[in-house]
């Protein structure tokens, strides 16, 4: 059984954009190991002749015609109603790249 290091947890936390404290890192590493120990049994199943199932319904070609559908469209007010900060119809976020 592999051991999950705090560094690996940090790497995953970065990929998942989840802030974690050092304390949490330890707990998470342990939770990872417990979980991975449970799912380890998958490796013992012979799946060499099996196709994966991504969709249980077996549906294919569920497509829309190219028509504008206003039924679910939001007004600008509705679209922005839950945003923390807006400016002249835009959603505002702190600057992420400095491009000056």
């Amino acid at each position, binding site marked *: 059984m592999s051991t999950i290091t705090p560094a690996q947890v940090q790497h995953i936390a970065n990929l998942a954009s989840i802030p974690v404290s050092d304390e949490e890192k330890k707990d998470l590493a342990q939770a990872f190991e417990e979980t991975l120990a449970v799912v380890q049994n998958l490796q013992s199943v012979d799946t060499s002749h099996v196709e994966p199932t991504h969709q249980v319904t077996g549906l294919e070609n*569920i*497509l829309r015609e*190219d028509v504008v559908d206003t039924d679910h469209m939001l007004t*600008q007010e509705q679209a922005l109603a839950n945003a923390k900060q807006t400016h002249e119809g835009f959603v*505002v976020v702190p600057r*992420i790249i400095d491009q000056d």
Partner: protein
Amino acid sequence: MTTPDSKNYELVCGMEVHAELKTNSKMFCGCKNDPFGAPEPNIYTCPTCMGMPGGLPVANKKAIEWTIKLGLALGCKINLFSKFDRKNYFYPDLPKAYQISQFDIPFCYEGTIETSEGPIRITRIHLEEDTGKLQHKNIDGKKVSLLDYNRSSVPLIEIVTEPDIHSTSQAKEYAKKLRQIIRYLDIADCDMDQGGMRLEANISLREVGTTELPNYKVEVKNINSFRFMEQAIAFEMDRHQEILEAGETPPQETRGWNPTKNETFAQRMKEEAADYRYFPDPDLAPVRFTQKQVDAIGKQLPELPNAKQARWLTKFGIETKYSDLLTSERTYAEWLETVFAQAEKPNDIANALVNKKITISEGEAPAAVIKKVAALTQTDDVDSSELLAVIQEVMKANNDAVAKFRAGDTKVIGFFIGQVMRALGKKVDAAELRNALMTELKK
């Protein structure tokens, strides 16, 4: 700047081009697809393209058909069975934190675009959704980014090539040809200023004479003009050459183009290596086409520029040096063909248009265009004795000019030509008149 065609190194370059399809509605929801025409930000959104809880995608059939159409136009093979996958990453303009794209089974693969410097192999064409639009502003002294989701989930095709491009001019020719074909198919406007078409070049250099792929590549992203692309590639070639000559390898990285400074710049890298954690989107059923359906799409293809040029040559005798330019836009070419069909010497018309000897507007009656071209070369028959008489008369009336000419100022010939024409009141062959004048003046 050294020349891009370096003596010791050659360019090895592949391209990734994104183009927004001009469907009526977005890729995965029914919102209006018109991000550039929208009078206000965030007015064409819904829970799905805003990434709100419970929003679900349903794929736009036309966008899929158009992707296949482009694939067929580029001679691609078509995957009859395909699917959409989630590409997971975080960025404020990506509302769901995943982009619905295609990972291992793109709609189209293995095509070609011919250039004058050789064929460029198309690796794949896949369909995905565009992100929202970010603008960087200062508001109340704070640096912020403004988000508009009108563009979020607009259908976007990505055309990826093999590293077959070996010069800046070939890169430009490829990109222009691709845009031309996309426009011929009428599936995208490819407006580069607006970001409707975006270029990305994967650049590396190798020593001339070697054939293996270099062990590094530098991505220059989000280039929004052909000229900038040429400049960016040339800039990178110089930069790489310097590094290589110093015995080092340019670091693998993503760069941007700064058009004001005329240089590329390293984009700040995230600490993490990219890991998009692709997996099939469970919200979208796979897509399956029959060969018959693909054939039906193929039948809708218009005649493409290369084929048109070849046909014009055989049918109308239009030289390729003209047809190359004249077929650049489909509606123009189609109109022009109605002119050629009625012209006696279609190649003269092509010549006149390319060399801008006449001004016309697209859609003008063919007869009118033919008349304009004919007027260029039409001359009245002038008796040679009549011509001689007029020349002598003009010379007599302009002794000063004759003296000037004889003193070596041959430029005054133009003056004489004008005078003779006016006195004649007829249109004569310019070359003939010039010869006659020279003979008399030199006497």
